[in-house]
């Protein structure tokens, strides 16, 4: 039922994209989100597309996974496309259906906006598909490190995230076990009238919370027993290494940005 839900959606691999430093990937994704807005004509959008597609090809992530990431927002993309096609009245009239008029500008806008959304989602999915959640956490912690000076609880935030990530599979497993135990006692989760199903949430949630709190207590106790007292002076077992290939990524990104600036109209 819920076995093997891969948290985040990391797909193991050894490609260039997988092996990049998570900081490099996080920064690139962040910068990409900005430079996407530089594109404003066919050639610049084609460039962005080329970058996105080559990133996917290089990562060797099966298209299926990318598509899974897109699925939830596909409807929004299609909707935005048609909104632009029907409502933007710019450029020459393409055709007139009487009740509706479609202009060339509308079609262009529709395509551009949808592509922009597509590229954004693809690149961000690529980040989570090729980076383990823990690496993302460590990467974020180091990148946000300087903001500690301004009182941002960066370490606590990262710790919270890694604990949550660690326990999500455990909780899912537990949920499944409790569901089975209650189903054996006649609770109905997946069939029967809605009212019955809603009622069976209590016998599921109460034991789940009881065990989650118990786990939290145990964990806190175990951490204290081993001398944990906050992030001050703590070093990480995961050392991030910035290598030439990470810098290379920024060369690509720089070239892309310059090309976008020169070619945009």
């Amino acid at each position: 039922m819920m076995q093997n839900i891969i948290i985040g959606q990391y797909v193991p691999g050894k490609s260039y994209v997988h092996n990049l430093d998570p900081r490099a990937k996080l920064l690139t994704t962040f910068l990409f989100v900005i430079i996407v807005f530089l594109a404003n004509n066919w050639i610049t959008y084609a460039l962005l597309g080329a970058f996105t597609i080559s990133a996917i090809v290089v990562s060797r992530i099966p298209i299926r996974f990318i598509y899974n990431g897109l699925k939830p927002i596909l409807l929004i993309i299609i909707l935005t496309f048609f909104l632009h096609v029907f409502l933007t009245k710019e450029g020459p009239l393409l055709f007139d259906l009487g009740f509706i008029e479609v202009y060339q500008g509308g079609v262009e806008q529709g395509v551009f906006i949808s592509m922009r959304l597509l590229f954004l989602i693809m690149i961000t999915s690529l980040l989570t598909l090729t980076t383990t959640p823990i690496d993302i956490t460590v990467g974020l912690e180091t990148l946000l490190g300087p903001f500690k000076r301004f009182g941002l609880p960066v370490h606590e935030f990262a710790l919270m995230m890694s604990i949550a990530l660690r326990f999500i599979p455990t909780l899912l497993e537990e949920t499944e076990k409790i569901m089975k135990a209650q189903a054996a006692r006649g609770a109905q989760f997946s069939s029967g009238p809605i009212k019955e199903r809603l009622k069976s949430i209590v016998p599921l949630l109460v034991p789940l919370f009881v065990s989650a709190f118990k786990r939290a207590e145990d964990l806190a106790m175990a951490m204290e027993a081993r001398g944990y007292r906050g992030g001050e002076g703590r070093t990480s077992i995961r050392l991030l290494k910035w290598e030439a290939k990470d810098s290379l990524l920024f060369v690509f990104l720089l070239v892309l940005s310059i090309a976008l600036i020169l070619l945009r109209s």
Partner: protein
Amino acid sequence: MDITIKELEHLYSKGTPFERTALKDVDLSIKEGTFLTIIGHTGSGKSTLIQHLNGLLKPTAGSIEIGEFHIKSGEKEKRLKELRKHVGVVFQYPEHQLFEETIEKDIIFGPLNFGVSEEEAKKRAAELIELVGLDHSFLERSPFDLSGGQMRRVAIAGVLAMKPSILILDEPTAGLDPRGRKEIMELFYRLHQEEGLTTILVTHSMEDAARYSDRIVIMEKGTVALQGTPMEVFSDANALKALSLDIPETVQFIKRLEDRFNTTLPHSVFTLEETVEAAVSLLREEES
């Protein structure tokens, strides 16, 4: 209700890269009223197998018949709830299923789901709480204030309250102290005899297997490796060794006894009491 399992196969996460065979080619038939024990190493598919018996898991191939209920891969058995009324399951660490404010309410949760009247359910709760070795005053207490062992007993009462005719026990005594283990196992055995239940016990304890079962099934790598009466199974020392399973201590002792006195004992001696008796009578014979 007799149980017949034919060519049962179960793959977890079928059709994904994480596919994993947990059961394959399991053929098994269990006559009504049998006390059957399933033994096997960790990961051999015992829990997976028993979850098929009340429709919590569906076979990916093969079929299961339980009385008039038929569970087949690809087909939907619509009367799952009815089936679950007949098949009670005590899971590993059943105390994790407690959720109500009071112990009484938790015990009657199952019966109420299966349409038993509240009055009748409460009557059962009152009987059962004593049967599992706690007293009446517990009924009004919260299940979350209890010790682990007491919680286990309450959870067991919650399953027994459904009055199942097939009782499935997945390592019901794991993590209990020796005395608690014995008490609980004796309780199950008494119920088995008094109520004429079909009992299926999953355990790692060879002693329990020897002591209570009519039949023993040994699982290995998702399939049945050996089955028979305790006598048949435990006298096949070579097969047990090949499966790297222990022979019960009493059986080992009897083997040595036989060697020492150069005789063969009737192969139905497995409990401690019987073993003692056999040894005593042998010693007496030698003396006289």
